[in-house]
């Protein structure tokens, strides 16, 4: 058994600790499960076993008067929050927890399992890199488990962990775990989830949570925490075309004019050609300014200030983009999660906030709603609190959008009710409507919608045969493959600009180790392209057949 990564006592060297700390990255994950599946216990266990709770907090739950399971320390109380909730003995909101191990920092968005709290789950999922879905081993896959996976997939979480909990109550039986895994894998496939992993645990006893368990020798994977510490985080935003929503113009004096913002996706260097939307004027990046000095490169999600070669009128709400630009749209389809007590009403005006721009908007129609019991589409003219559906939205001014599946920043928007100022709806843009097309240059969003992928590249090493097979597989599914034998920045920008998926044949290493047979290698690369989000899965989140 592997040495426990957390509890090994060694002489502490603070300088070394600080150096290591500065290299640590950050994984944000969300947790979903039905009431009593053991979510609070699991989070409490992660915090407690990774020594992220303070003595006084432990002391407080020892003496707490609402301790539900007397006797043992009730770890679920570590994560209970507000007074009203504590009195009801349930969690009813999104709460954020922080913990760190020697390898990584973590932020947990803890969201509840109640049917009526779709809203909170969507909120927690919106910024998550990974979702943990809890399933009670005794109950197996429930309608709610499907619903949680559905919402997490809808919000674009690229990686899933399915924790089958309470294994102690089914005698640590591997058949229980395997049949749940089989059934739920089908669900995840249908949802088009990129990557997933199943783990059998007991949150109460601690099996496979932080330490690998001797009780389940048939499971040879790492513990849940070991997995979270080492899983490669899919940061799709770094591979997307450059998008920079302007937050603010910085103009300390006549001599300096800079545009402050956070890089939403992609990267940029001084000298690169860019376009300013909505004017569409082209210019080049003059410099990338920060308090700590100018940079030679900025990438998502850095907050920087850009200066441009030419004097162009740029203000808050504009977007600076690379050659493969997003579509300026006034009409689009979106998946909507309704967040407000007041139902969606197509007769009423809304405000829409998208990146740094707020515009007037109307919901022209509700196309369908998702029945959250069956996950099937059903006709509906409206959406109520916690409802999910597809809507068509119209704005008075154009926004610069990509499909949400390609870009979780430029594909997302919120609707604000101007009467109550409530955040009424969350929108994930699914399709840029046709009437926005046909005018102006062909946009990256249009290309991506047609080909099923944004511009990108994949290496096959020197395997010519693999390149040809992969090209065929991609072409047959409507993609735009392009075999390239000499890869340089000019080819790269041309390939990106036309939205092609370049297959590079050269001595560079492929992204994964390739099997010996060409067929198997092409197949492996195809599924890598899907799991890394470069190629859209053929299953759409709202497939409609129900799952």
């Amino acid at each position, binding site marked *: 058994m592997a040495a426990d990564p957390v509890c090994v006592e060694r002489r502490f060297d*603070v300088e070394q600790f600080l150096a290591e700390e500065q290299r640590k990255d950050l994984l944000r994950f969300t947790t979903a499960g039905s009431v009593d599946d053991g979510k609070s216990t699991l989070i409490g266990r992660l915090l407690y076993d990774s020594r992220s709770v303070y003595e006084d907090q432990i002391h407080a739950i020892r003496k707490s008067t609402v301790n539900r399971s007397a006797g043992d320390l009730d770890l679920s109380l570590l994560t209970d929050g507000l007074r009203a909730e504590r009195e009801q003995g349930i969690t009813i909101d999104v709460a954020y927890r922080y913990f760190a191990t020697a390898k990584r920092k973590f932020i947990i968005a803890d969201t509840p399992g109640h049917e009526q709290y779709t809203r909170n789950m969507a909120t927690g999922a919106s910024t998550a890199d990974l979702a943990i879905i809890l399933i009670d081993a005794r109950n197996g896959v429930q309608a709610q488990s499907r619903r949680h996976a559905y919402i997490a997939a809808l919000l674009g979480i690229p990686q899933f962990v399915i924790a089958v909990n309470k294994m102690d109550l089914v005698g640590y039986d591997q058949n229980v775990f395997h049949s749940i895994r089989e059934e739920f894998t089908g669900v995840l496939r249908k949802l088009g989830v990129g990557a997933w992993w199943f783990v059998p645990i007991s949150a109460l006893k601690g099996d496979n949570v932080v330490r690998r368990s001797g009780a389940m020798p048939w499971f040879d994977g790492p513990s849940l925490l070991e997995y979270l510490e080492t899983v490669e985080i899919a940061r799709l935003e770094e591979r997307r075309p450059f998008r920079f929503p302007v*937050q603010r113009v910085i103009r300390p004096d006549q001599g300096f004019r800079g545009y402050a913002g956070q890089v939403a996706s992609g990267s940029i260097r001084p000298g690169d050609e860019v376009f300013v939307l909505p004017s569409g004027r082209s210019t080049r990046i003059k410099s990338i300014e920060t308090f700590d000095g100018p940079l030679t490169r900025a990438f998502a999600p850095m907050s920087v200030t850009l200066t441009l070669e030419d004097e162009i009128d740029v203000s808050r709400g504009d977007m600076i983009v690379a050659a493969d630009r997003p579509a300026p749209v006034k009409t689009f389809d979106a998946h909507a999660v309704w967040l407000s007590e007041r139902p969606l009403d197509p007769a009423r005006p809304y405000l829409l906030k998208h990146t740094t721009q707020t515009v007037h908007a109307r919901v022209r129609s509700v196309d369908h709603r998702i029945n959250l019991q069956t996950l099937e589409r059903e006709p509906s003219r409206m959406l109520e609190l916690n409802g999910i559906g597809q809507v068509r939205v119209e704005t008075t001014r154009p926004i610069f959008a990509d499909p949400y599946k390609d870009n979780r920043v430029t594909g997302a928007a919120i609707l604000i009710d101007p009467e109550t100022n409530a955040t009424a709806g969350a929108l994930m843009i699914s399709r840029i409507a046709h009437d926005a097309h046909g005018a102006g240059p062909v946009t990256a969003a249009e290309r991506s919608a047609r080909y099923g992928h944004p511009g990108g590249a994949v290496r096959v090493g020197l395997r010519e045969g693999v390149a040809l097979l992969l090209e065929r597989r991609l072409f047959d599914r409507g993609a735009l493959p392009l075999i390239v034998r000499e890869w340089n920045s000019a080819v790269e920008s041309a390939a990106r600009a036309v939205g092609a998926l370049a297959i590079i044949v050269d001595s560079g290493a492929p992204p994964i180790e390739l099997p010996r047979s060409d067929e198997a290698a092409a197949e492996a690369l195809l599924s890598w392209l899907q799991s890394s989000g470069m190629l859209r899965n053929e299953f759409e989140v709202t497939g409609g057949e129900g799952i």
Partner: protein
Amino acid sequence: MPSLSHLQRLEAESIHILREVASEFQRPVMLYSIGKDSSVMLRLAQKAFYPGRIPFPLLHIDTTYKFREMIKFRDEQAARLGVKLIVHTNREAIENGANPFVLGTTRCCQLLKTQALLDALREGGFDAAIGGARRDEEKSRAKERVFSVRDTAGQWDPKNQRPELWNLYNSRIRPGESIRVFPLSNWTELDVWQYIHVERIPIVPLYFAKERPMLVRGDSLISTEQPFVPRLPGEEPKLVRCRMRSLGCSPCTGAIRSDADTLPKIIEELISFRRSERENRVIDHDQDGSMELKKREGYF
């Protein structure tokens, strides 16, 4: 493909938040409490608007019972950065003799901090107040939003907070309402110290261990800066090597015994520590859930 470290990600997120506040509100203000979190916020504000100046004033709620070193540090920082500093005190309460021993800690805080803050925000006509609270500080803060709406009385309703998705912050408010903004929401205490270390951010010397005259009462070390702190019969201050883990009013901020006189030593102490930082503040020794009650009333 290079990737950002966790501190760089937190920094980028906080800068984004500060720029949103400055751009979407008419009259934002930054609450400056002089402590380590405020010092980090101030640095982030410098970064957010560089090479421009910080486009909002700082507001310090001065109870008049803060440590002298804090006030000196505050004035130096404001002068050095050329940022406007507003200092507000509930004069009436002070003139009526308010202090924690006469009124009790809770009532004293209510008058000199909560009331003073609400008055200052109203008088200044501020529609957004930026604060340094972190979600990891206390259980009830774990659910706090980055943009948190306060009603016309400055109060917080835990049942009526707006869902916050992605980094799309809803800044719409009605006249009289205001928003509290917490750019450090996702930072932990350790993140704050690391950032101070990496960025070489100035902090009040009280955070560093030194021999200081203290009243020693069991585990508590109480400063004698304020003459009204009552002495037990025969009690004399003793020189104790100690430091402050968080800064507040001198009579109500317990010091801790410590040898940590450098940042690495503070960080080392912190990770060997198994007690949360608020426990050292006398103000939180009320009943369970007291922070949430204060928040509902408008305390930060």
